Structures are given as C-alpha cells and as structure tokens.
C-alpha cells in the first residue's frame, strides 16, 4: 500500500497508510446512494409539519395518478401488512408510518415510490393530509405536569408522559456523606439535544427477489447483523433469506445504529412493486427525524472538604426521549452507562436518578459518539469539579490532581459499581499540562486580565467505558453484545479475515489487517478484511460505543492466535519435532536453540493444504474463528486542556489551542488513532460552541438544515496538539482499549470550562454562541433547548 517510494508497511502495529484510501482518493468509494440496480425505483417520504396532531385523513389519489408514480404507501397500507409499528430498541414501539396521530415534526406519514427521485418528490406535494392539531409537549420539564397532553395514547391505559425511573448507586450512603460534608456545590445544567449529522445521510436500497424469496438490503448501517435479525422479527421474513449489505458509509457517529422507518419503507416498496427501491433521506429529514443525542437536563451536587477532597456526587436527571423511546443501548441500562458519572475520581459515595419522559420531538438518543451516555456523565462531573474549584478558589487542574484515582488503585470499583481495568491518570494530566505549558498559560491569563482581555483555560479529565458486553450483562433486544471473527489463511499464505463490525471511516480494513499481522506475522497488505455483508461475515453486534477494537479486535486477535497455534502444530509435523520445542518469532516458528530450523507461517499454510501428515485430531487447512465475549469493558481515559479567547464586546469565542492526551492502550495504527482523536475534538468544539437543536413552543424544529444546525469548519478548529500515554488493558488480548469516542466524550467540558473561566461565570448551557456568552457575562444565560426569547 506504499504510495511514494519504497517505504515498507509495518508487520503488525505501527503507522501505515490506509488500505481503503486507494479507492476513496479516486472517488471510487461505493456508498448507498451510488448503488444503481436495473429497474430500480425511488422512494420519498411525506412528513408531518405538525409536532402533535390527529391524523384525520390521507388522500393519495392525486399522487397515485401522477405520471411515473408506482405506489403510494400510507399507515393504512402498513396496518394491512401489520407493519405500521415496529419494535424500538428500548422495549417500546415506533411508528413506521403514522396511523392515529403524528407525534413530532418530521414524522413519517406516507411513502411514494416513483420512477425517479424528482418524480417521487413532486408526488409528495400532491398528497392531501388533513390534520387536527393538538397541543404539543415541547419543554421536557413540563412533560409530567398534571394535565399535560398525553403523547402516547396508543399505549393502553397511558395517562401521562412518563417512560421510566432508574437509579444507580447508594442513596442512603450518599445522603449521609452529603449531610456531613463541609462544602456542597450544586449546579443545574443541560446537555442539549444534538445530532451526529454524518456527511452522508441515511438511506437504503431494498430488493426482494420474488423468485428466490431473498431480500437484499444495502443500507447505511453500523450494525448489519443486528439489523438482519430485527428485519426478520419485524417483517416475519426468514432470517436466512435476508442479506444486509453495508457498503462504504459516509460517517456514522451513532446515527446509523438504529433501523429507521425509511429502511422498512424501502423494503415494503420493493415488496409492493416487485422492483428494487432506493430511499435516501435529505439533510432536513436526517436532522429532524433520525437519532438525536443527549437532551439530558441534569442537576448535580458535589460534596467535598474545604481542602478540596471530593467526597460524593448526587445527580438528578430528566431525560427527554422524544415521542418514542428508541434509544439504542443495552437492555438493562435505560440511561446507558450514565452511572459512570463518578468519573476519574475516588469518591466515597454516589447516587443518580434518571427519569425518562416523552415529548413531541423525534425519537432516538445516545447517538453521536457518546459511548452510551458517558458523554453526559463526563460533562456533568467535569463541570461539577470546575464549579467546586471556583467555590474553593483552587486551580481546576490542581483540584483534579488531588482527587484523581492513583495507579495503585486499579482495578478500581467505583461507587456505582463499574470496575475500571487500568490507568495512570495523574501521569496523563501532568503530560497535558506540560504540553500546554499550564503555569505559563495561567501567568499569561493574569496579565491579559490586567489589560481587560478575556482568556480562558479549561481542563477536563475523562474516563470512558467502552467495548460492551460482557453479554451476560449487555444485550440489545436480547442479542448479546459479543462479536464473531473468522480468519482463513490461503495456501500461499495470504489471508482473509471476516468481521461482524462495520467501519464508517475508522479504517477497519487497515487496523484489522494489522491486528492479524501483529499476531501471525502475515504482512498487513496480505490480509483482506471483509465486513459489512451478513452473507459473508460472522454474527456480531456492530460498530458503536467504541466497541470495534475492544470486542471485535479481540475476536480477531484470538482467531489469529488460534491460527498461530495451529501453525505451530503443522510446523512441528513439518520439522518432525514436538510443538513444545518450537518458539515463535513474528511470522515464523523455529526450533528452540536452532533458529535456522524453522518454517514461516506462509510455509506452514501451504503445508496445511498439502499432503503433510498431521497429528491425530488435527484437521488440515489453516483457519480459525472466535466469538469474543469480553470479560469486562475497557476504560480509555485522557486529559484535555483548551485555551480560548473571548471578545468582551461581542461574546465571540476563539479556540486558540487544544491539547489532548489520550490513553487507549497500545496504538495499533497511531496515525488512525490520532485521526479519531482529531475528529472527536472537532465534535467537542461544535457541541460546546454551536451545535444544538432547539424547538419553539409549537414544536417547530429550529435546527432543521445546515443553515441552522451549524457544524464546525476548518476555521473554528485550532491545530490540535496531541499526546499519549499507554496503559494496556489487562483483559484485552492486545491490551487495546478503543478510542473512537474518547475525544467526543472528553472535549466538550474542556471547551465550556475554558469559556466560563474566561468570563468568570459559574455556568451557562451549551452551545456557547456569541449571544449566550454575552448573556452569561451579563448574568442572564438563556435555555438552549427552547426558542431564544
């Protein structure tokens, strides 16, 4: 894969250019919308303009009569097929097409299938829908008010908008610590509703072959196998007759975990018309209807001594889940992994309670690189620590150093029950401070303050919990969170590895080749990585929650170890010695004490397929498989420092520097790991400064296009400064922890802490736009989930 010169690839871990890039830089990636099939039709969805309304009638006659229209599907059509509702990922149901009411602006009402995309769009304008508007529930804090309109009257006996109450930690013990604490600081904060907004929107091409009965779905999915099982359950189709293909994916970030009505409608469209049907959402559809993230209204309390020893945390959360509870997370965890909110500190006690409510907004949740709500948890604790620092007049970095877990405390079981696998936290924070020149920055800040200039330094420290399962604790809709891997070495020593996870840009084709290479010594360019096709890969739960390396990467490593072990037996047969007499060096077994006598793995592969007589019980060929059920999660961590300048006259924030020290264990491909960190840091700048989806009182979505939902550009992002420490996970076969979401989780509080440090304000909610910063400076920050008053 060398591009220039004769630079060889590493055998195993190390910086290596990406194998997939040879097609991407030529414009030869194949994304869902690039798929063209003979006879393919095009679908488009009619969506509700109302946030809450009764559906009185849907007249499709004019649309059906429009030239080029092949079918118009409504909720009534789907009721006939028993497909109007589908199970959500959280023990609820989701309307595929509305039948009784619409419950959020942008909800799916009808589906047109036409000869081409333009005609399908035209026909949407011809559908006449009569709505009877109902009062909407927009403010999550009013959702449980007596007399609030009941959104989910489709659920028998439902009288309110309550979804669940959930708690973690020891309430009594926590209350007791608080009662005796010298200092208690409390703070309300909102993590606003944001959107992953990958550059490629969601879409699918469905083709039911009527002869074979085989349904093939090309779709933007991060979890092709889970989707296949769900389609089987939803549509009643036999699972072996369903093939889900996830081609190149133009970014996922959690947005492409769930099954959206559009995918089901493409399938129904193909069933109805007998032809392949493509549906790809536009950007407004993506922002208005697919999985949002966060929307946590949190009240934190932190108890400490006057010297700054943190003792306990107490958190009360109101979670806005939208119109259907469709958050994608392990079944037993309605608030995801939020209860890791104790963060990176040694606390005596902690307790949280989380209450989920319905509102007239899009369903979803826990998307956008959040590691199942760890994002919210880290934001909460890292803001609370800064609030405490301000209260005690202790430098925020110093306060963290006083309270961080010490290396000798690992494995460490936190107050809410998580067992952190490994870490050296003070080392990471000290390194970040060293790169930043922390003391010098504080001196500069003081000087600038003298001159009336606003400069801020924000610190955050995060502990991630990623790589779900173990499957005995973690499942999605009953599917245990384990992943399979199959490795086959061909006679000439080239290999193919088949994965259950699916890249959306993370570089799996390279990283997994390097994992196989590290263990077997087969050069990474000789390893073909196959993924994203359920007919050609083993079962597994897919890529999200930073789980590919911790779970699927472990599966690949174990399969590779099994191949290596088998190669040892084959080599021993070739050399007529005992397997125990052989020693491994990367790529080769040799006789202990006689390094010249040995066989490469390629030689062993050929022999395994040849006439060589193998020991009894050993079959020929050289392959192995593994289903990896992780014994624990992994706990990547990091220390981030952000430096901002704030324009006192306008409230405009400029991120001057951002220093990120990440520890994700050994780095398989440092170039790719650094790239993952960079992307997450940009996410953090986006969420902290500009991204949010607010709603007006009628439920109109105020961020429904890229004119209003702002993503950071090259101009808002500084040149990232990164550093690393390496603390291997003791239970992952390669020590790797995963890194996909670390920076998205860790960076928002660093940016917010920096801005608030600059303006000397205890708290203001994200996004810290110029207006919000100016209002905060004037003591009147506004709520960012509602229309600006």
């Amino acid at each position: 894969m060398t591009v220039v010169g004769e630079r060889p690839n590493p055998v195993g871990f190390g910086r290596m250019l990406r194998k997939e890039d040879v097609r991407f830089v030529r414009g030869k990636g194949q994304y869902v919308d690039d798929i063209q099939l003979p006879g393919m039709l095009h679908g488009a969805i009619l969506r509700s303009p109302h946030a809450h309304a009764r559906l009185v009638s849907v007249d499709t006659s004019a649309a059906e009569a429009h030239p080029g229209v092949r079918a118009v599907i409504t909720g009534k059509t789907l009721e006939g097929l028993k497909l109007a509702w589908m199970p959500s990922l959280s023990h609820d149901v989701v309307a595929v097409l509305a039948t009784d009411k619409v419950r959020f602006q942008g909800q799916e009402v009808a589906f047109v299938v036409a000869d081409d995309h333009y005609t399908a769009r035209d026909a949407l304008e011809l559908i006449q829908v009569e709505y009877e508007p109902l009062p909407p529930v927009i403010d999550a804090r009013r959702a449980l008010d007596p007399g609030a309109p009941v959104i989910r009257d489709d659920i028998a006996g439902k009288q309110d908008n309550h979804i669940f109450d959930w708690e973690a930690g020891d309430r009594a013990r926590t209350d007791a610590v608080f009662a005796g604490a010298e200092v208690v600081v409390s703070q309300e904060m909102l993590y606003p509703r944001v959107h992953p907004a990958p550059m490629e929107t969601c879409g699918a091409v469905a083709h039911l072959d009527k002869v074979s009965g085989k349904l093939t779905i090309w779709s933007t999915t991060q979890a092709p196998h889970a989707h296949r099982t769900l389609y089987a359950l939803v549509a009643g189709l036999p699972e072996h007759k369903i093939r889900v293909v996830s081609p190149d994916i133009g970014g996922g970030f959690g947005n492409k975990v769930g099954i959206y009505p559009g995918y089901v409608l493409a399938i129904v469209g193909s069933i109805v018309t007998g032809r392949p049907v493509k549906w790809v959402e536009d950007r407004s559809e993506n922002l208005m209807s697919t999985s949002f993230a966060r929307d946590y209204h949190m009240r934190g309390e932190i108890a400490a001594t006057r010297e700054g020893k943190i003792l306990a945390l107490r958190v009360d959360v109101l979670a806005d889940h939208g119109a259907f509870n469709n958050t994608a997370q392990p079944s037993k965890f309605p608030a995801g992994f939020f209860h890791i909110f104790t963060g990176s500190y040694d606390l005596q006690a902690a307790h949280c309670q989380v209450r989920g409510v319905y509102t007239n907004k899009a369903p979803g949740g826990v998307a956008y690189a959040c590691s199942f709500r760890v994002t919210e948890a880290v934001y909460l604790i890292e803001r609370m620590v800064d609030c405490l620092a301000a209260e005690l007049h202790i430098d925020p970095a110093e306060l963290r150093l006083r309270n961080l877990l010490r290396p000798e405390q690992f494995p460490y079981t936190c107050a809410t029950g998580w067992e952190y696998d490994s870490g050296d936290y003070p080392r990471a924070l000290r390194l970040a401070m060293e790169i930043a020149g922390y003391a010098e920055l504080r001196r500069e800040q003081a000087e600038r303050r003298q001159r009336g200039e606003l400069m801020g330094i924000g610190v955050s420290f995060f502990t991630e919990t990623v790589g779900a399962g173990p499957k005995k604790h973690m499942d999605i809709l009953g599917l245990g969170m384990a992943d399979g891997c199959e490795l086959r070495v061909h006679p000439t020593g080239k290999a193919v590895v088949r994965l259950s996870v699916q890249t959306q840009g993370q570089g799996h084709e390279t990283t997994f080749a390097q994992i196989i290479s590290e263990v077997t010594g087969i050069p990474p360019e000789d390893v073909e990585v196959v993924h994203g096709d359920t007919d050609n890969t083993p079962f597994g739960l897919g890529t999200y929650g930073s789980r590919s390396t911790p779970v699927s990467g472990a599966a690949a490593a174990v399969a590779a170890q099994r191949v290596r072990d088998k190669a040892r037996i084959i080599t021993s047969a070739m050399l007529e010695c005992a397997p125990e007499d052989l020693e491994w060096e990367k790529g080769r077994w040799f006789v202990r004490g006689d390094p010249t006598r040995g066989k490469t793995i390629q030689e062993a592969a050929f022999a395994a397929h040849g006439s060589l007589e193998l020991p009894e019980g050993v079959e020929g060929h050289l392959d192995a498989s593994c289903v990896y059920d992780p014994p624990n999660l992994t706990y990547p961590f990091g220390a981030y420092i952000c430096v901002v300048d704030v324009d006192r006259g306008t409230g405009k924030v400029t991120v001057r520097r951002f220093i990120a020290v990440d520890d994700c264990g050994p780095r398989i491909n440092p170039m790719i790991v650094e790239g993952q960190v960079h992307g997450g840091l940009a996410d953090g700048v986006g969420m902290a400064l500009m991204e949010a989806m607010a709603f007006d009182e009628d439920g109109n979505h105020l961020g429904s296009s890229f004119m209003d939902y702002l993503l950071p550009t090259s101009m808002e992002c500084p040149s990232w400064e990164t550093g690393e420490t390496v603390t291997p996970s003791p239970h992952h076969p390669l020590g790797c922890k995963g890194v996909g979401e670390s920076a998205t989780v860790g960076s928002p509080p660093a940016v917010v802490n920096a801005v608030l440090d600059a303006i000397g304000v205890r708290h203001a909610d994200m996004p810290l736009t110029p207006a919000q910063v100016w209002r905060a400076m004037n003591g009147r920050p506004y709520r960012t989930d509602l229309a600006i008053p």
Partner: protein
Amino acid sequence: MRVPAAFEYERAESVPHALALLARHGSEARVVAGGHSLLPMMKLRLAQPACLIDINGLTGLSYIREEAGQLRLGAMTRHAELLASALAARHFPLLGDAERVIADPIVRNRGTIGGSLCQADPAEDLSAAFAAAKALAVIEGGGGIRTVPIAEFHRGPYETAVAPDELLTEVRLPIRPGAGSAYEKVERRVGDWAIAAVGAVVWLEGDVVQDVGIGLAAVGAPHFHAAEAEAALRGRAPDAAAIAAAAALAAEHARPTADQRGPVDYKRHLVGELTGRALRRAVARARGREG
C-alpha cells in the same frame, strides 16, 4: 436530496434579450445568476417560478471599473472577483471586509453581487455595505435605464425596486475624497448569516466628518440604513465621544428580532459595539492608518 419543481428555462444572450424574455414571461419568471440564493429556495420549494431566465451568459455585466468618479460593479460580478479586486479595495476596503465574510469561498466563486442584492435578504452583507457607501443601483427595463439610490432600492425583506420586467445591471459607488470604510460582522460560525453586521464609510475633511454612511444588516434597519447615527456624526470630529454617540443611536434605532442567532438585547448591543468598531476602523483608514 431536495430538488426543485419543474420550470421552463430560458437563456438570455444579451441584456435586451433578457428584458424581452422577462417581458414575455411576466411575474412568473425569475432571473437566475449564480443561483446561490434562488436555487436553495427552489429546492426547499419555498420558491416555484414557472420560468427561469439564466443570465450567466451576460458576461458583459461582469466588471469592476472606475468611471466618471464612480466605482462601477457589473451585476454579474462574482463575489470572489469583488473580493480579489485591488481597485475596489483601494476605494472601498469595506467591500473586501464584507466579501471575506459572505458565505464561503466556493459559494463566492459562483454567487453574484447582483443576485445577492436582488434576493434582498435582511441579513445580506453587501446590501449593508452598499447602503453605507451610498451606492446607486442601475436598473434596465423596456422603458430604458434608471438609477435608484440604494436607500430606495430595498423596499423590504426580499423586496426591491426592480420590477418584474426589469434587470439590475450595475451598482455604482461614488468616489469622494477623504474616504475610509470598514465592515464588521459577528456570526455564529464562519459562513453563517450575520447575527448583526455594520458597514461604515466616512468622508473626512480635515478633522471633520464631512459625510458618513452607516449600513446595518440583520437587525431590522429600514433600507439597511442607520440614518440617525449618520446625522449625529456628520459635521463632527470623529472622536471617541462622537463615535460612541453615533453607535448608541444606531443601537437605539435598530429593530432586531429574536431568533436562534440571539435575543433582541444582544443584537441591539452588537449594533452599538460593531458600529463603534466599524467607524473607528473607517476613520483610521481615512487617515491612512489601517484600523
């Protein structure tokens, strides 16, 4: 992806041809130049013209020149061309200031100044810059050519003095001695529309402001114009107190509305803040010192 509804398409070969096409198709027709205002509206189906008259072939309308004591900008001049123009920068540096913050470099390659002006979005930057420069709009129609002061060009949001059978062909900025100018904008993010923006042009005679133009974008100023602030500064020395007074007047008379870019009080504050900044830089430039 959103797509426009169907329409008829005509390509104008010359200005008279464009006018003839406009006359033939009437008010159902829209002129399209760069298309970066109109086509997104058509994709969202907020605009559904029956006919589009494409004037991209009118390359004769793409120019920046000095003539008869005026800086003359052809309506088909692309934003990127105005940004790159040394001539424009020499006479009116606020045009460069404004162009640098209009949309993004790729959009500026295609979007035209005439298109921006005719879209008449209340947050449009050039409208405020031209208001400050006391520009004239040249409009051609079947009845001939007329020249309209920029203050009369904008009739309201998305509404201009250009009749359905007319074409904006040129913008003229009178060049007067002692000029200095600047444009200040605050946006939520690069490429976003202004939260508030202020363009200022001062013409100094010695130490006195012989004339001044202040244009405001995105804050509900009638005709993008801060008339009261201008009046307060005219004839005075542009010292800190005078500029502060003008800035306060601009803020007081602005009529911003709340939206997701900000609440009213903040936008009003910004008008004052940015008016002060723009005036200070304009004065510094008039005095030959880059502000």
